[in-house]
Structure formats: C-alpha cells, structure tokens
C-alpha cells in the first residue's frame, strides 16, 4: 500500500503536466475558432522537433543530477558548421551531416571527461562549453550563412501526408525516433538504470559497483549528440547558419524538462514527460499567436510562472516522501 502511494507521488508531476496540457488545449479550442484541429496539434511537433530532441538529451543529464548549459550554443555551432561546409566548402550532405553530428558529440565527451575526471561542477564546465561553442560559431562567420542546397530544401519542405489532409515533416519523424530510442535506453537498459541510480545517490551507485564514471561521460556525450542532431533539425527549419541561433534555448530546454516532471535533484522523471513539457511550451506560443494582441514577452512570463509552480510542486513531493521515509 505504502509502496503504491510513493509510486504515485513520483508520477504526480507527470500527471499534472499531462492534465495541464489537456487543459490548455481545451482552453484554446473553446476560445479560438480553428484551434481544435489535428493539424494545430501536429504543428506543435513540427515547430518544436528540435526542442524535443535536445530535451530528450537534457532529461538524461538532469536525471543524473547534472545540468547541461551548452546545448543552445551547440545548436548554433552545428548550424554554422553545416552551413559553411555546405555553402563554402561545397561538400556533399553525406559528409556534412556526419561531421555536424560529430561536433556536439566531441563537445559532450570532453565536458563529460572534465566533469567526471577532475570532479568539476557540471554547471561551470557546460557554462564554459556554452561560451566556447558560441565563440567558435562567431569565428566561423559573424554573419548569417543561408543554405541553398537541394538536400537541405528537401529536408525542410517535404511533407509526409497523414490521413485527413494532415501532414508532418521529416524532422518530426527523426524526433519521434529519438524519443522511442531514449525511452528504450532509459527504462530497459543497464545504462538507463545506472543514470537513475546516479541521480538518486552517486555514492550509493558507486558502492553498488555501477560504472558511474563511464555512465556520466556517456550522459554528456548523449546530450551533446542530441544537441547536434537538434542543430541539424534547426538548420533544416531555418535553412541558415547563424551564431545567434537558439540563443537562450538551454533555458527553454531545462524548463521543458522540469515542467515535464523530472526532479532537478535527479533520480526521478520520464523522457515522455519532457516531450509533454515541450508541447506545453509550444502550446503557450500557439495560444499567443491565436490571441494576436498578446506579445511574445508573455511567453517568457508564462514559462516563468509555470516553472515556479512545478518547482514548488516538486519540492512538496520531495518533502512528503522524505517525511514518509522518516516515519517508516
């Protein structure tokens, strides 16, 4: 009985997130004509495919009790690398795509090694990574590089038809594949179990004989890879590389993960929750677009308020479960 209850507590944020999404969607449907349609729902995925991909990577980082601030800048760097290799070096996409994906992965490995080997705080290491990636992308070029290449425009404009005159983009398919692999990784592999264990207590995980060091490096590598993949998707979306792309995106990502019910102290949360978190950020934007008169800064304020509510909710849950443990 107690076991069942404590499980409920951990799922509470996720339940709250899903009901919030349903609530916001019905609010929009009641208030605006044309809001209640499958395409509006699918557009949430189309416009936020890249955010879903980084949020998935970030979920693993936060589950392990860390944080990755470099993801937004890595998107910019990837877009710059992809754009300059395609347009200036005239390389084929078969070479450009793997190299672009390697950018974030290498960043992730180095950050993970620094964090694990020298026991540095993830916050500071990834902060330096954020500066570095942004600086490097400006060093490639200060100006926007627009991409004019058949492969990129194909990826950008292809519509995959769905029944009922609806459609999705290739990016959505990539994002959904990433989500499925991540759910598999988190819940059905040793790697996923170790991530949750590190988040619960790094020391206990170490004493249990779990490969803490290797897993930590892998987590940041995974996050870096996801950031680069998101960078590519973002490049398809914008069809350009620019050093200022995705400015502040790391905060949106962290917000999405937190709103998705992952505890910032680590150890509890779901990849699926982060996807819903991203959809909530998306629906705030959509409502603001439909409202027409509300300006974009309301997005920031709304995200702030939601963050506050969910953080307090998380805090209450943690306090309750601590109390429960103490009384047992």
């Amino acid at each position, binding site marked *: 009985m107690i076991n069942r209850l404590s499980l409920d507590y951990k799922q509470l944020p996720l339940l709250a997130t899903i009901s919030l999404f349903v609530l916001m969607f019905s609010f929009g449907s009641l208030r605006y004509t044309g809001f209640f349609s499958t395409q509006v729902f699918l557009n949430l995925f189309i416009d936020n495919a890249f955010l879903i991909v980084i949020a998935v990577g970030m979920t693993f980082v936060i589950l392990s009790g860390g944080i990755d601030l470099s993801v937004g800048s890595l998107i910019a760097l990837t877009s710059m690398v992809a754009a300059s290799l395609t347009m200036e070096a005239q390389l084929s996409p078969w070479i450009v795509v793997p190299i672009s994906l390697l950018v974030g992965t290498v960043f992730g490995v180095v950050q993970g090694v620094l964090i694990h080997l020298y026991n*540095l705080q993830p916050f500071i290491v990834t902060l330096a990574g954020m500066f*570095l990636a942004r*600086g490097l992308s400006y060093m490639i070029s200060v100006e926007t590089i627009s991409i004019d290449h058949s492969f990129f425009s194909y990826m950008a404009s292809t519509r995959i038809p769905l029944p009922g005159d609806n459609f999705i983009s290739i990016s959505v398919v990539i994002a959904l594949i990433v989500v499925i692999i991540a759910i598999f990784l988190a819940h059905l592999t040793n790697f996923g179990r170790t991530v949750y264990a590190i988040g619960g207590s790094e020391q206990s995980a170490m004493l249990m004989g779990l490969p803490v060091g290797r897993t930590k490096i892998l987590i940041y590598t995974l996050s870096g890879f996801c950031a680069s993949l998101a960078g590519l998707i973002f490049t398809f979306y914008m069809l350009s590389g620019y050093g200022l792309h995705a400015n502040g995106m790391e905060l949106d990502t962290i917000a999405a993960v937190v709103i998705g019910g992952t505890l910032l102290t680590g150890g509890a949360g779901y990849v699926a929750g982060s996807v819903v978190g991203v959809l909530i950020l998306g629906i705030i934007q959509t409502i603001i677009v439909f409202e027409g008169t509300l300006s974009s*800064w309301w997005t*920031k*304020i709304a995200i*702030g308020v939601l*963050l506050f509510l969910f953080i307090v909710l998380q805090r209450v849950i943690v306090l309750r479960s601590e109390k429960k443990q103490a009384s047992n």
Partner: protein
Amino acid sequence: MIKSMLKSRLFWPIIVLLLILMINLFVDSSFFSIEVRNGHLTGSLIDILNRGAPLMLISIGMTLVIATKGIDLSVGSVIAMSGAIGAMTVASTDGTGLVPLFMAIGLSLLICTLVGSWNGLLVSRIGVQPIVATLILMVAGRGVAQLITGGQITTVYYDPYSYIGGGYLLALPFSVFIVAFVFFVAVLLTRKTALGLFIEAVGSNPDASRLAGINSKNIMLMVYMFSGFCAGVGGLILSSNVMSADGNNAGLWFELDAILAVVIGGTSLMGGRFYLMGTVMGALIIQSLTTTIYSIGVPAETNLVVKAIVVLVVCLLQSPEFRRKVFGFGKVKRTGEQKEREGVTLS
C-alpha cells in the same frame, strides 16, 4: 615578505591583470596615458574602470551569494528590469529639478531588492536549489522588463539621469564612486562585524551553523536581497550610460561574467570563503580582457572563446583532483603544502 605576498589570494589575480595591461602597452604605447579633457580624466585605464563598474557591482553581490554556496542566475534579467523601471519612471514624470531622478532610482532599487528577496525566500524558506530558484526569474525577468518598456527600446530624454553612468565627480567617472561606496559598505559589514563570519559559516554548513545559533535562513535571504540590490544599481548605471532601456539585450550574459569574476577572484563555488577584493580584481581582469581584445583588433567574437578557456583553466587549477593528477607526478617540494592538500581531499 615575498612569501606572504605569494600566499595572498590576490597575488595571482594581480599578476594576471598586470600581464593583460602589459600586453596593451606593447600593442599601443598610449595605453597608460591619462589626459585631462574638460576637467575629466580620460584614457584607457579610466575607461576600463568606468565600463567595468556594473560588472564590479554585480560581482560583489554575487560573491556573497556564492559564499553561502548559492548562485544567482537572475542578475542579468534584474539589470534589464532595473533599467526598464528607471527609464520608464524618468520618462513618465515631467517634473522639474531632481525629483524624477530620485523617484526612478528609489523605485527601481526597491523593486530589485524585492526581486532579490523573492529569490532568497525560495532558497531559504521553500528550500529550492539556488540554480533552479533563480532560473525562474532569469527566464521571466526579461519578459517583465519587456512588458514594462512595451517591447521597445525606450530612449530617455532627461539629462540628470545620464549623470549616474556618464557623469564625472572630482574628475573621475561618477560610477567609480558608486562602486567604491558599495564595496566599502560590503567590506565594512562583512569584515568589521560578525556578518561575514556568519555568511561563511552558512556556506560551509547551513545545518551546523543553525545549530550554533546563526539564523541561517535570514542570512541566505539577505545575501540574495543584496545581490538584487547590486544588480539594480548596475542596471541603472548601464541604462543611464546609453540613455535607454532595452528589455531584450540589457545585461545579457552578465550573470556568467559575474560568476567568472568571482571565481577568478579566488572565491570557491563550494562556498564557505569569500574574497571581495579578489572579486573586484576578477571583474577588472574581465573588463581589461574585453578592452584588450577590442584594441588589438582581434574580432570581438574571440572574447567568448578566451573567456571559456579562462573559466576552464581557473576551475581546473581549483580542482584538487586535477592538481594531484597533473602536478602530483613531479617532485614534491614543500611537504607542508602537500599535507595540507591531502587534508583537503580527505575531508
């Protein structure tokens, strides 16, 4: 004499600062010249002091927050809010004399201190991690600043307002006096009263300090309020300097620069010890680095790369694991220091 100099926390920051300034001397020999123009001192050194004033202020506030093992990510947004409130108050009142100026200063400092206390309450009363608690305002604060200015870059047409960031007093920029005043108040309060000790005690162990009779919750609340206040003053200087308020870009990346300044100054991110003078040095190093990069003619974008490398090097040098692994292979010259080092890692 030399030994005590080497041991001082300020030794390395001062050496680095002098090195950066020296580089400038080779590039442009007029770097150190200070002229008197219209009764004002002008020159690159004065410029560094003047431009670095907001960063110094914000870093002073950040030092005390970090000393309690916290961090304040919201300062950049508070700068934007403070500038927006200041500019809008000055713009909306068309009184005579200095009344609008004092109203603007009072209102924006009051609100920034309140914003700081919001962070402090979340951290000390609800027990949210500082990174997370201040993240909320980091996201929402910029939205609020834009809301205040209506999303526009608001220009101020009121001359006394420009005095805060652009005026001169006794031939020196007025902002330098503001920094000096805040710095001395902070030093007096933390070094001449027990307050500094309390802050360090809370930073090294909040539970133990509570048991020792320190009101650790109020100490935490206070440092966040002070940080908000400092960011408020910094925001007023910045917005008065350019005579406008820009909710989107004012104070962008300032939180990161401030954290960097604190770390360069020798304050550990683990809390428990702080060095205000070191922080001021750190802020000056960052500012002169920026000025140097501009004056050498390297693209300004390199700035970020240089900063990233500096952060990493400083953090690696602070890490006991790194020192043991990299320097531990060589001959150990001073056994006393080695013992001390092991003592630190064991605990």
